[in-house]
């Protein structure tokens, strides 16, 4: 190659490159200047995904990015808005991010388009204390100039970083107090002690973090019926991960808890009857500090509602027996997720009775006897109650007045309920005391109802006798009249 030839080529390349560079640089003069000024935002922006997609400063801030002169570039007539404040920020993001023509057609993005809409309806979309803007803007969580996708490890909304991002506000007592003094601010702290938190801290992006349960743009107050963490919705939320066997592979726990829970008394009460008194997953496991209760503390946890049973259990011989054998207390007999309504079938030593698992005729004999006696007392109460009810009903059907006996029926029902609680003392004496009251009421009611029924028949027999007497009297009176009239006729 001749020297003149290589010189021509290099000039051409140089011109090509510089023109391309100029072409590029000519598109974002803002960045050029601000970078030269060592503006940190400009430096950050270079890492931003919007920069990678070819957006300029002016695409958010307005103005003319092709102009070198400040006055021409940062010109209001060219659309310059300066640093947007308040809702102007989110409006700016939304200009593109809510526009299908931009996101889908131009950039072929798979991102959702409803973030702004959801944010406005969420709790963060409420007005701030100043009253001039929403509580949160897009930039509050996503940052402003170094925005990356959430799969990027440096993103503030990456699963491993998200808890800290939310905590920026939610662990700030002073800040939260201005909105909801009653809302706790220790969620992050508790989270770090939970199974989810520990895994999150050790780098597992699959573990649940704030958005997994609360949602991202659509976060609603936990008291809001539509919230994903409202008690009636909560089991489904936990279930999203915990019932997915594939997702949960490798963690070493079952994935059928929700299935079992839905069949249980608690599940039916909460999910079907919408009874908010029934526990959801968080009531027993905790929500931010979620972890299964320890073996020795199961009765305490159940005892937050079932106080009497827990109290009786704790002072019973079973407490030591169970704990020393590493048996989870209430769960051993009642199950954990699939807790069904406790009936008398659970008690005793027969088929289906839980006592029989440990207490057999020649093993743990003392308990065997107690269980058997308790069951037979409970059975007597049932048969007694049924008999009493049927007798009272019969008397009532016959039209007899049995208001008082009906009143005493309550005592039998009460005894049945109380004995079921007293079982947890595993002390025959306590159980017997209550059962005896019920049995006494049974005999009283049965006697009274029986008396009423006897009255019914007595009345009818009495009527028969009285009618007989009257008939005889009437007939003899009639004959007497006939006789008198015959005599009168004869005398005429």
């Amino acid at each position: 190659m001749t020297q003149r030839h290589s010189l021509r080529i290099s000039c051409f390349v140089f011109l090509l490159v510089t023109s391309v560079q100029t072409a590029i640089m000519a598109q974002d003069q803002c960045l050029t200047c601000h970078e030269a000024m060592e503006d940190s935002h400009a430096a950050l922006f270079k890492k931003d995904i919007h920069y990678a997609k070819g957006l300029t400063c002016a695409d958010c801030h307005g103005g003319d990015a092709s102009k070198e002169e400040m006055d021409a570039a940062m010109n209001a007539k060219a659309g310059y808005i300066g640093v947007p404040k308040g809702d102007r920020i989110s409006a700016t993001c939304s200009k593109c991010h809510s526009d299908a023509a931009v996101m889908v057609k131009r950039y072929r993005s798979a991102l959702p388009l409803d973030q702004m809409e959801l944010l406005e309806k969420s709790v963060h979309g409420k007005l701030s204390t100043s009253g001039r803007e929403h509580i949160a803007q897009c930039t509050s969580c996503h940052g402003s100039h170094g925005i990356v996708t959430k799969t990027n490890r440096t993103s503030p909304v990456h699963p491993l970083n998200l808890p800290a991002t939310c905590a920026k506000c939610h662990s700030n007592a002073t800040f939260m107090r201005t909105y909801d003094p009653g809302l706790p601010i220790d969620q992050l702290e508790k989270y770090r002690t939970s199974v989810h938190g520990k895994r999150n801290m050790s780098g597992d992006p699959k573990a649940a973090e704030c958005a997994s349960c609360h949602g991202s743009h659509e976060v609603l107050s936990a008291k809001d019926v539509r919230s994903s963490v409202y008690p009636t919705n909560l089991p489904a939320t936990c279930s999203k991960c915990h019932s997915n066997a594939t997702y949960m592979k490798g963690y070493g726990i079952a994935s059928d808890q929700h299935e079992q829970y839905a069949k249980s008394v608690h599940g039916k009460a909460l999910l079907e009857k919408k009874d908010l008194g029934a526990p959801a997953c968080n009531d027993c496991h905790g929500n931010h500090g979620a972890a299964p209760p320890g073996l020795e503390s199961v009765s305490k946890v159940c005892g937050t509602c079932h106080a009497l049973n827990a109290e009786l259990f704790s002072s019973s011989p079973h407490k030591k027996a169970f704990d020393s054998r590493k048996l989870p207390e209430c769960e051993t007999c009642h199950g954990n997720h699939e807790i069904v309504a406790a009936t008398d079938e659970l008690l005793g030593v027969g088929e289906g009775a839980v006592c029989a698992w440990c207490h057999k005729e020649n093993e743990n004999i003392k308990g065997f006897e107690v269980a058997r006696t308790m069951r037979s007392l409970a059975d007597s109460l049932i048969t007694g109650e049924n008999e009493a009810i049927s007798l009272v009903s019969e008397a009532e059907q016959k039209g007899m007045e049995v208001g008082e006996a009906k009143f005493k029926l309550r005592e039998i029902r009460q005894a049945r309920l109380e004995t079921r609680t007293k079982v947890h003392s595993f002390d025959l004496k306590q159980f017997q005391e209550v059962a005896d009251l019920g049995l006494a009421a049974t005999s009283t009611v049965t006697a009274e109802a029986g008396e009423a029924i006897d009255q019914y028949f007595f009345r009818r027999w009495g009527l028969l006798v009285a009618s007989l007497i009257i008939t005889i009297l009437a007939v003899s009176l009639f004959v007497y009249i006939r006789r008198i009239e015959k005599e009168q006729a004869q005398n005429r």
Partner: protein
Amino acid sequence: MENIEQTPAKQSKRDFLKYILGGSFLAWIATILYPLVAYLKPPKQAEVEVTSVKVGKLQDIEKESGQIVKFGNKPVILVRAANGELSAFNATCTHLDCTVQFRKDMGVIWCACHNGKYDLTGRNIAGPPPRPLDPLRVIVQGEEVFISKNV
């Protein structure tokens, strides 16, 4: 006027009729009188108790105590607080209808069945009861304490 001779058969028939008539008449009187006399005998429970029940003397009711009083067909709990104030409520627990009791050690009205608790205004404060207890009026006339329906 005495007239045709009565044959012995006729005579015995007349006597028979007289006996039957007289006898059945007496039986009839007895059938009427027996229920009437039995009716007039005062029954065991001498009085009707109902929408106003006399509990007893004010000085007999201890402070910080509660008692169950039968009010017609319902149980009613009468509580006297530490400051001497009396209050009365329908003692049927609003959870599953057990009869509540006053617990001095807990300072509340308590239900033995499932640990339901009510404060001394009858409001349900802990446990499963969904509603407060229905209050009744307590009237003190001189020394006597009465419970009556809230109207």
